[in-house]
């Protein structure tokens, strides 16, 4: 997939654990893990909104477009 989720970088910057983030966003840790490992196929605007709110960042900080080889 050419869209990469760089969630761990932002989480490390904000010094927040997966469990805490999942709880604050309101999703399960299993789903957060899917998101972090780039296995997800789509992200709801509401989830993205919550992530940005909790991590105090912009969508561009966690999502990145990379050209497919």
């Amino acid at each position, binding site marked *: 997939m050419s869209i990469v989720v760089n969630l761990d970088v932002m989480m490390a910057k904000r010094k927040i654990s997966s469990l805490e983030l999942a709880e604050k966003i309101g999703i399960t840790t299993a*789903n957060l893990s*899917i*998101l972090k490992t780039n*296995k*997800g*196929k*789509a*992200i*709801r605007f509401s*989830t993205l909104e919550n992530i940005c709110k909790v991590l105090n960042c912009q969508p561009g900080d966690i999502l990145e477009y990379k050209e497919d080889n």
Partner: protein
Amino acid sequence: MKVTGKNSLSNGIKIGLQFVFILGIMVIVLLPFWLKLYCTYVNTSLVYFPSLILLYASGIPGLIIVKEFIKMFDTLKQNNPFVVENVKHLKICSIWSFLISIEYIIGAFVTKSVFSIIVIGVFIIAWLGLYILSELLKQAIEYKEENELTI
């Protein structure tokens, strides 16, 4: 009424299909005997050997179709029907239905019975219907996966 899971309609149908499968094996094993009786006493104009070959050639695929359906109803019992295996099972059923209809098209010249035309019609509809259903199921599985991986 519950459609999937334990003690459901699909489980009942599965048991029925298993019964049909066992009955089908018995009929196929004793087919030469039954057909001999049928040719001697009921329909004397029927030619024994071509009919026997036709019935074997359509009976065994028929049993395979029943077996595939039992496997599909098994996944319904487990509440997990949206799996790639079911697409395969439906495709296999569709191919065998097509072959049975071809066999009866050839067999219609041998048996010269109106009944053959009905069988041809039914299996052609089954062939196309099952193929369409398998493609629909494939799409449904894709939608389901996409939905499950939307976070």
